[in-house]
């Protein structure tokens, strides 16, 4: 029998430690860097300016399973100049994306309301892409006392 297949105590220890490291290294929640990456995917590297966008959400929520959230963008919503897409991102849910809303001049107003899940206290970012290609954003922090996503 070749010695390499023999499960020596040293090997078991090394492999066990490696497996444990692998398990613990996998985050239960996404990291803020994941949000940055998701935002970069959306913006394609175009600069994002804070402003025009307003996230409306309670600063403190009891239940992260259903958080009412509104996004408004200052825009005349004309054929020539309107909001095309509003993307919502979170920092610490298992996945950084929440939703993307595609609208146009026929919306009349750039205002969307929905309900989302929040795994923990974290920042939320909304980015609006306008018809001229410019990107605008707003970021808020929401404190969550009962988490969602990973619990039953």
């Amino acid at each position, binding site marked *: 029998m070749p010695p390499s297949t023999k499960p020596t105590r040293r090997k078991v220890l090394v492999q066990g430690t490696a497996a444990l490291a692998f398990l613990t290294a996998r985050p239960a929640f996404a990291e803020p860097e994941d949000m940055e990456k998701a935002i970069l995917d959306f913006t394609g590297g175009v600069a994002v300016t804070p402003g025009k966008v307003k996230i409306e959400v309670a600063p403190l929520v009891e239940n992260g399973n259903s958080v009412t959230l509104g996004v408004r963008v200052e825009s005349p919503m004309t054929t020539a100049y309107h909001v095309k897409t509003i993307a919502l991102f979170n920092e610490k849910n*298992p*996945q950084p994306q929440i939703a993307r809303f*595609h609208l*146009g001049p026929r919306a009349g107003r750039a205002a969307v309301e929905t309900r989302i899940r929040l795994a923990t206290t974290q920042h939320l970012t909304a980015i609006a892409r306008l018809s001229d290609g410019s990107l605008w954003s707003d970021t808020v922090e929401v404190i969550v006392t009962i988490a969602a996503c990973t619990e039953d």
Partner: protein
Amino acid sequence: MASALIDAPKTAKRGEIITLRALVSHQMETGYRREISGAVIPRLIIHTFTCHYDGEEIFRADLFPAMAANPLIAFTTVATRSEPLVFRWLDDAGVAITETVQLVVTA
């Protein structure tokens, strides 16, 4: 199984901005929860929502597991003609839910 509820005005003046609220019953299983046995409960969410009115798609949403169960989406549109508003949800299992409401537009 799933049922949809639309909150929209029955009538509107031409050019008026109306708010449409679309609610659908769906568990929006995130794919991150586990059974007691430890097995991951597979993801099953509505990933796309659309609204068609007066000849074109006026609103679309791409959704992710961070959307709450029984998703509610509220948005606006300009009343243009007396036409149906057609709402459509599509989930990971390929199930489509469609709901239509008629809008009467007055001059």
